[in-house]
């Protein structure tokens, strides 16, 4: 039985109304496409930190981080440590993001136009949107599962509840674009942080550190504290998530968009440094909730959840349902809604900006009026909302969420990071290499996804998912994309095509 009461419902209601009103009111500051997409590049440091932190933490993040904590103990927080190190490295050196911001572009593919030509820009836009939308597709369902498990609502209401939430988010995103997102992100960051901190302190006080540590020792042994010696993780896990973190930090559109909206590259780098440790919190705080579930839930139930990958993610919400007192429940639900809304709105705008700026570039050629451009951007955001409803609520999630997100994200992260690094630092890179890297970088993860669902072809399925495994497959994807870039570029040079105009090649 959940502790969700009228008091909790009122807290959630007041938060939702306040957020919607603030988001919709911000629309009066938007009259141009660049104001809609990057807030006229007028975002300062602290607003940038709030926005980036709010965007990169959704209910899905909370669910998969808690799932990793429940399944692997503290070793599950390794991706957060890797991401923090990558953010610090990029924040201090300006690696890739400085040339990107200095170029004054709105999206990553736009940056590729100069070095690789318009066809590569278009292809890049396509893989970014494909990987991004598949990745984002699970957000709604996972968010709904959390709310239903914690609040004790009827599971039949999941679709209606999440549709109403998405309509609200879409309304202010469509009207105010990035300006509305920044305002609501700021409010959502505060509400989300209060909820996350309060529950974590409650977990420390009521479950206790020693109980959590002994639960990990009993269930996972020393591997629960060190990923290198964990049976299911190992060096491949650390290297794969290290590579994924670095490539995500420099090319993931929702992260990079904060740099592109910053007033200059120095502010962009400062946002990265300032947000770096947040990524440890992003994995470790929900991870602690997952570990608390491991320690506090009934031993038989824990054993059942650990062997069933579909239900493991429900361990944390099941624990919170009984653990949170009245009043605190409302704060946590408001915090999680805040987290989900900020991610949904920013992701819709990010992928929408790539569709308008890069995929539709051959049609508008930057010649459309501001009014027409704004109308198209708003229609694209609305269409992404419709896609989310259809795909997000009907796609069945059967495995670890984090692994699904990592492999769909790699569809574009592998090739885009290779293109960006080559575009910034390797003068001999060209459009042959770029096209080869995009194709290889997309084919590898998609073939893994296909092999994973082809359970009737046991040999193929076993080779991909067990003999090689997700983490090694992921590492090979990045290596293959980089090799394709080098081979393709050198081939074009050696065949004497390097001076050919981009219109006739690829």
């Amino acid at each position, binding site marked *: 039985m959940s502790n969700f009461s009228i008091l909790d419902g009122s807290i959630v209601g007041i938060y939702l109304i306040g957020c919607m009103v603030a988001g919709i009111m911000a629309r009066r500051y938007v009259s141009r496409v660049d104001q809609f997409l990057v807030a006229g590049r007028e*975002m*300062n440091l602290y607003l940038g930190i709030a926005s980036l932190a709010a965007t990169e933490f959704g209910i899905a993040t909370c669910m998969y981080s808690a799932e990793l904590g429940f399944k692997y103990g503290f070793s599950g927080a390794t991706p957060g440590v890797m991401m923090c190190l990558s953010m610090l490295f990029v924040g201090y050196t300006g690696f890739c993001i400085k040339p990107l911001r200095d170029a004054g572009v709105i999206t990553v593919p736009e940056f590729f136009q100069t070095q690789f030509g318009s066809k590569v820009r278009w292809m890049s836009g396509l893989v970014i949107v494909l990987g991004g939308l598949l990745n984002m597709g699970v957000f709604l369902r996972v968010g709904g599962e959390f709310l239903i498990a914690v609040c004790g609502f009827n599971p039949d209401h999941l679709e209606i509840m999440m549709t109403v939430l998405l309509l609200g988010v879409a309304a202010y995103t469509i009207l105010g674009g990035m300006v509305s997102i920044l305002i609501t992100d700021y409010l959502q960051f505060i509400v989300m942080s209060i909820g996350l901190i309060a529950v974590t302190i409650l977990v420390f006080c009521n479950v206790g550190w020693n109980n959590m540590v002994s639960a990990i020792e009993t269930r996972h042994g020393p591997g629960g504290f060190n990923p290198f010696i964990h049976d299911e993780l190992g060096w491949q896990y650390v290297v794969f998530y290290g590579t994924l973190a670095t490539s995500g930090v420099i090319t993931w559109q929702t992260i990079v968009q904060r740099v592109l909206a910053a007033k200059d590259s120095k502010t962009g780098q400062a946002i990265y440094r300032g947000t770096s440790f947040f990524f440890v919190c992003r994995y470790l705080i929900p991870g602690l909730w997952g570990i608390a579930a491991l320690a506090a839930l009934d031993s038989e139930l824990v054993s059942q959840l650990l062997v069933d990958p579909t239900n493991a993610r429900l361990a944390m919400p099941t624990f919170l349902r009984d653990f949170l007192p009245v009043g605190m429940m409302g704060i946590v639900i408001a915090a999680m809604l805040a987290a989900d809304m900020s991610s949904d709105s920013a992701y819709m705008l990010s992928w929408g900006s790539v569709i308008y700026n890069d995929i539709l570039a051959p049609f508008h050629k930057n010649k459309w009026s501001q009014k027409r451009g704004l109308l198209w951007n708003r229609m694209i955001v609305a269409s992404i909302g419709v896609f989310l409803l259809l795909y997000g609520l009907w796609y069945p999630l059967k495995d670890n969420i984090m692994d699904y997100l990592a492999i769909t994200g790699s569809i574009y992260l592998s090739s885009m990071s290779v293109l960006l690094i080559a575009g910034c630092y390797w003068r001999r890179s060209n459009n042959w290499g770029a096209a080869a890297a995009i194709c290889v970088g997309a084919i590898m993860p998609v073939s893994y996804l296909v092999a994973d669902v082809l359970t009737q072809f046991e040999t193929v399925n076993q080779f991909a998912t067990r003999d090689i495994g997700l983490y090694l497959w992921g590492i090979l994807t990045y290596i293959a994309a980089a090799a394709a870039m080098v081979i393709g570029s050198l081939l074009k040079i050696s065949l004497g095509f390097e001076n050919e105009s981009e219109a006739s090649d690829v």
Partner: protein
Amino acid sequence: MFEHWFWLSVSVACVIWYMTVTIFVAIKGFSDIKSMFTKLSRQKDESENI
């Protein structure tokens, strides 16, 4: 045993860091919003004058 102390320190650091940043960003971020609105209004006026 080192791993236990490591994760305990990181967990405590997360809570303290997060609390500090939330207070700091809540105060400074509000000024950033006001400054952004001022600049966006100016941009809007300029584009209307053109």
